[in-house]
């Protein structure tokens, strides 16, 4: 019963996304677009600084009271949010990472923000991030941070062993060989075995395009030529033990702490995580742009979050006000980075100076890590769309990733298999998938 209502409300938009929702009959009007900008707002998030942001907003907005509730991150959170929308107990504002947004939009689980926050998104954010929240010509979320790729490396190690910081992937491969030669226990990279986001970002950076939303159907091409190239490259590095195969949690950080990982491909936010998690390696790390195939700047996103108004939110007017403040207002940005330890790159370029000013760079020997991030942000390839069943796609890849290093699974074949699983799941949900 509840699902039906959600579906019909969405049906107004004549878009690829809306058409993919089963059984749209048209004619539904968005009834919940509130104009009231007072009252109570509940806010679900797992992002660092969320509590401080809510408190700062409450101080400067006496008419609105935001109640912040911590939620776990990961797939469990998304099933919690999905069920909350189903039951009609959703919060007014919720965090959704970019990869998961199309799933929520396609299922009609978030409100269409085109009328309320659409203009702010259009004016304030570059195409690189807009393409992730504007789907089928409508706005479904407001970006908080961009997470362009960067290369983290141990400057002291590289200098000591006279290793050059790679700018191409061929040079990266050479670098990993040099690192292993210089110190048999050290490696110049990591292939995360539990987090497909890294591999996905590398495919995107190389020009891969996993999902394309056409008029009334999706094209799914996880194993297109650029993605295959990336998969072969990283699969080979992992199998030859030139990069570590580890989960991105404790094993990874242990390897960093023990100087067994001296370089890794990550994103802008990693500078803060690195500094917070391994504080005693202060002054040893530096940030560089991620290598590319041809040496010309190219980038993609690994991570990043947006805010949505879930379907059934009781106070969407005030929710929109809150979202706008925490994503586009300098005061809001100040609250996010107040701890001085977050290196997240605001998706709104106008706010980058605010975040840059708050971040203490002594860990990086005074290097302007935000300059690297901002350059990488500009180089993000356009044309990327996340798929509508990200949970399934991610699980299909993550299940196989641990088998890559010992050769029991070939990385390109993993992508082919994940594509098949993704298409099956989409068809099960009644979406049309055209032949790739």
């Amino acid at each position, binding site marked *: 019963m509840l699902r039906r209502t959600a579906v019909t409300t969405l049906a107004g938009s004549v878009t690829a996304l809306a058409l993919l929702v089963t059984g749209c009959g048209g004619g539904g009007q968005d009834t919940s677009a509130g104009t009231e900008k007072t009252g109570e707002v509940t806010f679900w998030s797992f992002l660092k600084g969320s509590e401080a942001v809510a408190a700062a907003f409450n101080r400067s907005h006496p008419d609105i009271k935001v109640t912040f509730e911590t939620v*776990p991150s990961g797939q469990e959170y998304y099933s*919690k949010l999905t069920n*909350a929308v189903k039951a009609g*107990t959703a919060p007014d504002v919720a965090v959704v990472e970019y990869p998961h947004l199309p799933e929520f939009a396609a299922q009609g689980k978030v409100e269409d923000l085109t009328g309320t926050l659409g203009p702010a998104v259009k004016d304030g954010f570059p195409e690189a991030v807009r393409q992730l929240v504007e789907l089928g010509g409508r706005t479904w979320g407001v970006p908080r941070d961009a997470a362009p790729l960067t290369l983290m490396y141990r400057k002291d190690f590289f200098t000591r062993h006279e290793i050059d910081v790679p700018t191409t992937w061929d040079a990266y491969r050479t670098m990993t060989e040099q690192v292993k030669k210089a110190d048999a226990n050290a490696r110049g990279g990591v292939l995360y075995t539990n987090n497909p986001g890294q591999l996905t970002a590398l495919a995107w950076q190389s020009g891969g395009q996993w999902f394309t939303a056409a008029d009334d159907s999706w094209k799914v091409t996880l194993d297109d030529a650029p993605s295959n190239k990336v998969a072969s490259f990283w699969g080979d590095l992992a199998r030859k033990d030139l990069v570590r195969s580890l989960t991105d*949690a404790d094993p990874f950080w242990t390897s960093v702490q023990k100087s067994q990982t001296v370089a890794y491909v990550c994103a802008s936010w990693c500078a803060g995580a690195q500094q917070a*998690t391994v*504080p005693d390696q202060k002054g040893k790390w530096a940030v560089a742009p991620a290598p590319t195939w041809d040496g010309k700047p190219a980038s993609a996103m690994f991570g990043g979050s947006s805010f949505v108004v879930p379907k059934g939110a009781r106070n969407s007017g005030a929710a929109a006000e809150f979202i706008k403040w925490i994503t586009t207002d300098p005061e809001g940005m100040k609250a996010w980075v107040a701890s001085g330890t977050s290196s997240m790159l605001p998706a709104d370029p106008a706010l980058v100076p605010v975040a840059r000013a708050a971040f203490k760079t002594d860990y990086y020997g005074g290097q302007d890590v935000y300059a690297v991030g901002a350059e990488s942000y500009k180089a993000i390839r356009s044309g990327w769309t996340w798929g509508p069943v990200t949970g399934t796609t991610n699980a299909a890849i993550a299940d196989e990733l641990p088998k890559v290093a010992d050769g029991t699974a070939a990385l390109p074949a993993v992508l082919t298999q994940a594509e098949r699983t993704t298409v099956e799941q989409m068809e099960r949900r009644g979406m049309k998938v055209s032949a790739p």
Partner: protein
Amino acid sequence: MTTSVRPPAPARVPAPGPVPPPRGRRRAARRPSALLSKTGVTALLALATFYTLLPLTWLLLSSTKSRQDLFGTNGFALGDEIHLTQNLQYLFSAQDGVYLRWVLNTVLYAGVGALLAAVFSVAAGYAFDKLAFPGKERLFSLVLLGVMVPATALAIPLYLLAAKVGLVNTFWGVFLPGLVFPFGVYLARVFSAAYVPDEVLEAARMDGAGEFRTFRRIAFPMIAPGFVTIFLFQFTQIWNSFFLPLVMLSDQDLYPVNLGLYVWYSSALSQGRPEDYLLAVVGSLVSVAPLIAVFLMLQRFWKSGMTAGAVK
């Protein structure tokens, strides 16, 4: 009470046999094959013990480490300095002492919840065994049906129901489902059949005890070991229940300890909050301590309860 006591010679329900004498006779260990199997079994048990204790050892050692040592030193070795006291202090003071609140919540959800669930189960099982009422066997089939459905599968339906009556994100949303324990009812019926002879009830009634008094003063003490078994079963079940609190609760002050630890752990390293990772490690150690204590204290009942159902 209009229910009457079932006649002593039951036609449909199998009569409870007398509890067989304990099988404590020692097997002759003279033959080499028996000796061999004994070593084999011991080795296997040692392996199982090792497997069980290994993660606990890691947890114990990790809890004593500073954050640097946590990632910098071997997981099965001590760190450079012992930080256990600081870690514990940090655990109980972090986020305004929310951890203690989670522990308290868990005691209410799992402790009080399991206690009540065990009371209801024993009462229901006793009623199913000793009393006659219309539709009894049909109702009991319903209980058995409940045993078959895994608790995880019920989380979402329960959540949707709770949303309808406004119990989402309240204490009751997690507490009430914990009171229902079909397997406990089934066990209690078996226990009642094994431990409570009908003759004793007859005698009690002859002496003028009412139906409830008979249950409370005569039958209940006889089923006590079964009661503890059921309590422990349900206690662990609620203690381990994760998905229901996950979807049901979003107010951190209502979290049981396992959900709280998960929140800390899940975003500690991905969100650049390594101090939360330490909290999750130390918090895990503190949270298993009461469980170990409960089991050691109730071990006697637990062991007798385990075999009691088996001979039926």
